[in-house]
């Protein structure tokens, strides 16, 4: 019997791999030294561990360890990359290009720069979630100094062609940042050949601990940044603050495991994801969000037509998944990512992101399929929209009565 709730939310975060946790513990208790302490062995031991982890992170993405800067996570990496480059290269121009489906850590950072006098273009992706390269080319202006495009989308899992975008940027002398938080261990990254200047990483999406990440800062050609965190000049001045040795050791070990096991793991995970899709695509009126080919192996984002998002989440409470709808207030907010790829609100609301991972089993997938088939059936039995669909009525052709307003009058008059 599968244990519930079944965790299918690996894109939100992953558990720390037991091998990673084991490696971290001694750096909390015995080897607690400050890696910046140069005068005793406590410091030397910690520094050695930090540098070993730097090599492990660099190895996964094939760059020079000197190009890795430790941060607190991908959000900080994105902030440091975008603000740091925009400010440093402001004399080249103050125009930034990014994509509407970026993570908020990129979008909100660019918005903040707009507030400070920069201008920005937010490109809409195509319906499959991918950037139209020609459209991106056309958006480049003489004063474009920075482009930021994510490698893997967190909601729909599509993989952008960052190599093509990178070549355009190099040609035009534009700094190119890539948020790769969702990509490590899923997609091969080779920074020796990829023309990328800055790349953000996170540990906790790849079976490492939360609270640690890294930023790749290219040395050839040399990319410079204005520091966002000032202090002791750690990390060659890019990011001050005492290094969290245990976290860094954890990230290193997690990335080492990812490099070693990703080929076999992705094959297994892809089979599980495909099994899930095979089970769900048999249900009527189910839509896949995002391209199926240009996609990481562990992500499936599906909309169930004619069921409402929140009741769907209530119905599948035995599955730990993410919903395309934030139902915390009376004004429902459908996923901005799904909106940007042209999904109508109803379908955006009733979308679910399934993300499979290292500890997902075939039994988990089969159990999830049976729960969803059963609950979707029940909710549709309840749904007047499903009846209308079955009767051949186009819901968009119906003029919906907003009875709330017309029937409120008597009470308002009395008040």
């Amino acid at each position, binding site marked *: 019997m599968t244990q519930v709730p079944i965790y299918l939310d690996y894109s939100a975060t992953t558990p720390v791999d037991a091998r990673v946790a084991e490696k971290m513990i001694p750096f909390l208790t015995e080897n607690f030294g400050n890696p910046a302490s140069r005068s005793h062995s406590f410091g030397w031991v910690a520094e050695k561990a930090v540098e070993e982890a730097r090599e492990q992170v660099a190895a996964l993405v094939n760059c020079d360890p000197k190009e890795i800067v430790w941060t607190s996570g991908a959000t900080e990496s994105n902030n440091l990359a975008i603000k740091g480059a925009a400010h440093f290269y402001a004399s080249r121009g103050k125009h930034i290009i990014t994509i509407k489906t970026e993570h908020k850590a990129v979008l909100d950072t660019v918005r903040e720069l707009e507030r400070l006098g920069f201008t920005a273009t937010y490109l809409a992706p195509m319906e499959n979630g991918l950037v139209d390269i020609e459209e991106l080319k056309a958006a480049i202006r003489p004063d474009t100094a920075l482009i930021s495009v994510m490698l893997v989308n967190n909601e729909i899992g599509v993989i952008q062609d960052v190599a093509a975008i990178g070549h355009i940027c190099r040609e035009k002398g534009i700094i190119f940042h890539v948020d790769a938080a969702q990509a490590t261990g899923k997609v091969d990254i080779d920074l020796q050949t990829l023309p990328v200047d800055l790349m953000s990483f996170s540990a906790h999406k790849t079976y490492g601990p939360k609270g640690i990440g890294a930023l790749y800062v290219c040395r050839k050609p040399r990319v410079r940044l204005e520091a966002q965190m000032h202090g002791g000049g750690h990390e060659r001045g890019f990011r001050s603050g005492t290094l969290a040795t245990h976290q860094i050791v954890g990230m290193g070990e997690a990335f080492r495991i990812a490099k070693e096991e990703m080929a076999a793991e992705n094959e297994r995970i892809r089979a599980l994801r495909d099994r899930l899709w095979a089970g769900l695509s048999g249900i009527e009126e189910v839509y896949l969000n995002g391209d199926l080919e240009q996609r990481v192996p562990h992500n499936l984002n599906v909309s169930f037509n004619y069921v409402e998002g929140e*009741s769907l989440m209530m119905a599948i409470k035995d599955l730990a998944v993410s919903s395309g709808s934030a139902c915390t207030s*009376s004004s429902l907010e459908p996923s901005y990512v799904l909106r940007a790829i042209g999904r109508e609100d109803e379908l955006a609301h009733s979308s679910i992101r399934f993300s499979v991972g290292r500890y997902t089993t075939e039994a988990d997938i089969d159990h999830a399929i049976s729960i969803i088939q059963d609950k979707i059936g029940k909710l549709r039995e309840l749904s*007047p929209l499903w009846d209308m669909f079955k009767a051949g009525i186009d*819901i968009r052709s119906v003029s919906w009565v*907003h009875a709330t307003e017309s*029937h409120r009058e008597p009470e308002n008059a009395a008040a």
Partner: protein
Amino acid sequence: MAYSDKVLDHYENPRNVGSFNQEDEDVGTGMVGAPACGDVMKLQIKVGADGVIEDAKFKTYGCGSAIASSSLVTEMLKGKTLNQALDIKNTHIAEELALPPVKIHCSVLAEDAIRAAITDYRSKNTTADEGYDACHTAA
């Protein structure tokens, strides 16, 4: 979303799910809300010759509290005259289900659905319904 046990009960075991034939003379149908707003309620009443609601059925596309509100309303309606049914207010529904403030609109929609169903029934049965009321006034 922290829902009351009553909401969860109605959501898990909705009462009176289904449809009557919309064309029947003794059936009133109210459809309120819109898919884009996240709630659509279809409420139907079956009214006896004596003007009392004999049966009620619903179908709802919406969140847990929208489903619970409409399910509860079908229970409340049975055995009531149309005028008694019109006395059911959203506050009764919200109180009974202990709806959180952000979900009050679900109870408002349920009240609207009652009104819409009665309006539909009355438009089909002008004379019968009014005749009944007239008799009462005369008596």
